[in-house]
């Protein structure tokens, strides 16, 4: 079987038909019979082609609603494709939602058996692996106790222990298996590597891009149900951030076009300035020097209690270095035409040398609808005085043999200032 594809998707599309909630009421449904019903159709996936070789580990990334979950459901056979073909060779274990299928009334022991079987293990295999599962869970003393008396930590450990013993040909993971204390997490990671080394094909759907980078060399980026990138993980993550920005812009364009209610949709023009402590506009900031982002937004429509978010990302490296937003309810005001918003975000710049972008966005009070965003503004950080390389200055204090060792200042390990 080596060398062949474990997973083949050809022209796969999945359409969900959403009927209005009221259609679930039989009388209404009967009354509407034969007439056009209020149905909205949504393609969660469209024309997806994907081949995964036996033993390969790939990541599937994309923002919420991009079709990740649907892909996962198709791969695990929970749902069928509307168009195209899904083919998976070998046994599949979908680890989607840990502890799914656990029955609270039953003991840990009983749950191990049922859950193992639900996850695709044969009854004989569960019996064979039972001791190993128990040992992995580290809760030997509680197996005859009903699960409802478990602490959440114990519950997760046992659920993980079962999940991790499935040994399928194809493992479909929703988020990387990491839970519990650090020691247990490391154990899970070790076990993942063992599974990988054993030649298991692994598909990981995840938000945790940093861990993905180390686990899967290849990633598929989904956007609006389509594969927009398939290749090395690092590039895929880079593309994901581009796509996210594009989609945010499209969304705010849409908001502008559609107009609508006060807080629900509205357009804002957001501008930002980068200034130093003295209020002077700058493009280059030294590590340790405060960076102030001045934001000014004007509104076409009335917007209530907007949330302000800011993201700083290193140029060329996908994931943001930092992002935050104001807490809903922390700030209360109504903005609109003639009532602009002025804000100042003061950042303790601990970034190390390199190019960065900063983006500011305004959302409505629920954080759902983006009202306006700035194009990414770039700036540079120089760190001549810092003897370190990387993204962030963690200010190491090193002592060897009880004696503090000072790093020579002024010399650099990385980063070039702009000329």
């Amino acid at each position, binding site marked *: 079987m080596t060398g062949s594809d474990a997973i083949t998707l050809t022209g796969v599309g999945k359409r969900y038909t959403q009927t209005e909630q009221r259609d679930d009421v039989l009388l209404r449904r009967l009354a509407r019979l034969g007439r056009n019903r209020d149905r909205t159709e949504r393609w969660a996936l469209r024309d997806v082609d994907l081949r995964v070789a036996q033993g390969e580990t790939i990541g599937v990334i994309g923002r919420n609603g991009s079709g990740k979950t649907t892909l996962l459901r198709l791969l695990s056979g*929970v*749902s*069928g494709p509307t168009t195209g*073909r899904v083919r998976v060779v070998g*046994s599949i274990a979908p680890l989607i939602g840990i502890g799914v299928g656990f029955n609270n009334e039953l003991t840990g022991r009983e749950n191990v058996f049922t859950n193992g079987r639900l996850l695709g293990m044969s009854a004989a295999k569960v019996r064979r692996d039972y001791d190993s599962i128990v040992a992995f869970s580290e809760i030997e003393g509680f197996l005859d106790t009903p699960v409802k008396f478990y602490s959440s930590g114990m519950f997760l450990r046992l659920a993980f222990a079962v999940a991790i013993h499935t040994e399928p*040909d194809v493992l479909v993971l929703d988020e990387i298996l990491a839970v519990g204390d650090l020691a247990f997490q490391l154990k899970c990671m070790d076990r993942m590597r063992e599974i990988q080394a054993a030649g298991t094909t692994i598909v990981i759907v995840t938000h945790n891009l940093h861990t993905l980078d180390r686990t899967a060399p290849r990633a598929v980026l989904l956007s609006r149900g389509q594969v927009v990138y398939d290749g090395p993980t690092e590039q895929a993550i880079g593309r994901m951030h581009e796509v996210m920005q594009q989609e945010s812009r499209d969304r705010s364009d849409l908001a502008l076009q559609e107009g609508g209610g006060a807080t629900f949709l509205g357009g804002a023009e957001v501008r930002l300035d980068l200034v130093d402590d003295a209020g002077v506009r700058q493009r280059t900031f030294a590590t340790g020097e405060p960076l102030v982002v001045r934001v000014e937004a004007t509104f076409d429509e009335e917007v209530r209690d907007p949330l302000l978010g800011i993201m700083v990302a290193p140029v060329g490296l996908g994931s943001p270095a930092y992002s935050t937003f104001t807490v809903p309810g922390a700030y209360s005001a109504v903005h609109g035409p003639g009532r602009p918003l002025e804000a100042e975000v003061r950042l303790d710049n601990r970034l190390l040398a390199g190019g960065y972008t900063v983006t500011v966005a305004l959302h409505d009070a629920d954080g759902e609808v983006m009202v306006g965003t700035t194009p990414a503004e770039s700036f540079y950080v120089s760190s001549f005085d810092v003897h370190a390389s990387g993204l962030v200055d963690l200010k190491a204090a090193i002592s060897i043999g009880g004696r503090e060792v000072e790093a020579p200042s002024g010399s650099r390990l990385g980063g070039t200032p702009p000329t």
Partner: protein
Amino acid sequence: MTSGAATPILDLSGERTPVRVLLRDLWRHRDLVRMLAEQDYRSRYRSASLGLLWSIVLPLLQGLVIAVVFSRLIGGGQTGTYVPYVITGVTTFGFLSQSLTAAATSIVDSGAIAGRLYFPRLVLPTIAPSANLPSLVVSLLLAEVVVLVTGGGVHPQLLLAPVAVALAWALVVSAGALLTMLHVYSRDVRYLVQAGLLILFYATPIIYFLDAPAGVRSLPAGLVPFVLANPATGVVQLVRLALTGSAAHVGTAVAITCGWVAALTVVVLAVYARKERVACDRL
């Protein structure tokens, strides 16, 4: 890794599942039915100190109360035959009603599992009827004790008891399988089932006789065909035949029930072939 020829292959094109694949998957998961039924059974009675006893005592009590009350209404002096008659009916119908109620909502009720893990959806409506089998068997044993105590004898028809239990199971599984799929699309089904069972109780010969002994009021002849068309009648009459040695119209009633089960099975397979892989999209 999986070795040899037995490598399972998931091959889906379109949302339909061929009936052959449906049955093959169900066969492969037959131990899952037993396992989940056992789990259902154990978890249900674990927190009650009397456990399984409740499920036996309740229909027995219900049967006794009905028997005592109605024996006075239907005709005096018949308590001797009437008590075992009602108890066999109530016990059997209790099984049908409880199993169907649970089976009819089984897919939605286990949405958390069904939406995340694949196993044949047909497994779900078989769980509750299977989990209720032990209490049905014990209740029927007790009912047979009542028959013996009230003057009935041991007879060869008793050998039909397993067949009667199997028929009861097949009826609720096939009806439950269809209803639970409908329930995914319309939540009214839960209440329609409750309403339907209420009517079915009186459309089944439980408290009245199809063919009463002399001096006792029985069902008006004009209503007999309606009662016979009710699939529950065949099950109840077959149980009576097995436990008491005789039951009116039992051949016709059982044949009609078998017809219902066959028709339901065909419909269920057709519906599941179309909907099995997409039903859980709606959960």
